[in-house]
C-alpha cells in the first residue's frame, strides 16, 4: 500500500516519489541486469535506461491490471537488456573465432591448477557465442539454463507465451550445439 502511494505520487509528477522508487528498486534492477551482462558498466547503463523509460511512461502503469510495479519494472529491464544485447551483437558479428581451434589448444596443454591463456580464451569464446545469439534467444537461454528459471516465469516476465519461450530455447540450443559438433566429431 505504501509503495502504491509512492507510485501514485510519481504518476502525479512528484520528484521525491521518483527518487523513492529509484531507491527501492534501483539495486534490484541493477542485479538483474548484471546477471545477464556480467559487466558493471553495462548493468548500470541498463538500469539507467530502465528507470528513464519507466518514469517517462509511468502514466501507462495501471493499478487495475493487478500488475505490481516491480514486475512492470522487471519487464522494462528485460526489454532494455534485449536492446543492449542487440547492439552488442551487431558489434560482434565479424569477430567469431572457431571454438574447435581453441579446443585444440586446450587439449594439447597439460592440465594446470591455474587457468591457462587458452582456458581464458575458450571461456571468452563461450561468452561470445552466447552474445552472437539473437538478443531474445540469448536472454531466454540465460534465464532458463543459467538462472534456472521455470518456463512459466520466463514467459510471464517477458510477456510472451510459453510456446514462444520453448521455441526460442530450442533454437538457441540448436545454434550452440553446432559450435560443439566439430569437437564431438573428432576421432
Amino acid at each position: 500500500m505504501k509503495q502504491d502511494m509512492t507510485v501514485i505520487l510519481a504518476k502525479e509528477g512528484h520528484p521525491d516519489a521518483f527518487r523513492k522508487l529509484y531507491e527501492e528498486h534501483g539495486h534490484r534492477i541493477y542485479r538483474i541486469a548484471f546477471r545477464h551482462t556480467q559487466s558493471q558498466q553495462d548493468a548500470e547503463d541498463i538500469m539507467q535506461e530502465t528507470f528513464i523509460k519507466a518514469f517517462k511512461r509511468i502514466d501507462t502503469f495501471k493499478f487495475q491490471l493487478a500488475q505490481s510495479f516491480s514486475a512492470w519494472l522487471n519487464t522494462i529491464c528485460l526489454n532494455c537488456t534485449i536492446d543492449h544485447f542487440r547492439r552488442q551483437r551487431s558489434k560482434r558479428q565479424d569477430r567469431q573465432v572457431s571454438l574447435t581451434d581453441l579446443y585444440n589448444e586446450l587439449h594439447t596443454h597439460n592440465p594446470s591448477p591455474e587457468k591457462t591463456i587458452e582456458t581464458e580464451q575458450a571461456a571468452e569464446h563461450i561468452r561470445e557465442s552466447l552474445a552472437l545469439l539473437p538478443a531474445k534467444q540469448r536472454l531466454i537461454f540465460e534465464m532458463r539454463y543459467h538462472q534456472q528459471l521455470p518456463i512459466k516465469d520466463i514467459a510471464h516476465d517477458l510477456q510472451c507465451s510459453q510456446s514462444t519461450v520453448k521455441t526460442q530455447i530450442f533454437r538457441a540450443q540448436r545454434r550452440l550445439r553446432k559450435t560443439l559438433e566439430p569437437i564431438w566429431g573428432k576421432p
Partner: protein
Amino acid sequence: MNCQETHDLLTIAVYGRLTSSQKEELQAHLQTCPECAAKYEKTVPLMDLRSEVTDIDIPEPDLERSWDVISEKVLGHRSFLQRLFGTWAQIPTRKWALAACSLLAVFVLGYFAGRQVLGPGRSDLGLGGAGSAPAGEVVAVYSDTSFTEYADSLRPVLVSFLNRDGVETPEALRVLEQQLVSDMLVRTRLLKDLAYGSEDESLLELLQDMEFILMSLRNLDPTDRDSAQHLAGLIREKKVPLRLQEFRSARSTF
C-alpha cells in the same frame, strides 16, 4: 533419455548450468552409451568455464551517479509548474529565482496600479480621506486584477510548507524562499490596508491571519522543528489554504 537429449544437456553444461537432476540423468545415460560418453569426455574441458557469478561477486553500483543521469533526463523534461510546486528541496535554484522575480514584478505592478487608482500625489493607502476614490471601488479594482493571482501564489507556498515533512531545505533555496515569503508579506499588508475600507470582516480576518503566518515563516529558524510544527498546526487549524481557495473561486469583489 536418448542421445539427442544428451547432446542438449552437454550443450547446456557448456553454455549454462545443469541442475542436479539433469546431471543424474546425464550420468545414467553415459553409463549405457559409449558414444555419448566419448562426447562427454571431449566436452569436459569446456564445462564450467563460464564464471559462476554469485551475489558476492556482483560489484556495488554507483547509484548516485546513475540517479544524476536519470533525474536529468526525466525531471529535466518536467513542466515549470510541476517543478515549481513539487517540493522545495528538489527544485532547481534558477526556477525559484524566476518565481521570485515574477512575484516581485506582480507586486510592483499591483503597487503602481493601486497608486494610480488612488490618484497622483498620494503616498498613503488610507481609503477614508477626502478626495480619495470610494473604498469599495478601489478594493474591487485591486481585487479583480490581483487577488486571484495573490491566492494562486500563496497557496502553493503554504501547501509546500505543510508537506515539507521534515526535509531540510538547501541554504541557497532557503534564501530565495525567504525572499518569496517577504514579498508575499508586503503584498498581504497592502491588501489588508485596502480591505480595511471594504467592510468585509472575513477577508480582513484572513489577511490578518496571513500576515501573522508569513511573519512567522519569515522569522522561522530552519532548525527549530517545534516552531515549524506549531506553525503548521496553526495553518491547518485556521484552514488557511481552504479559505484562500474559497475567496479565490467564490468571490469576485471584496
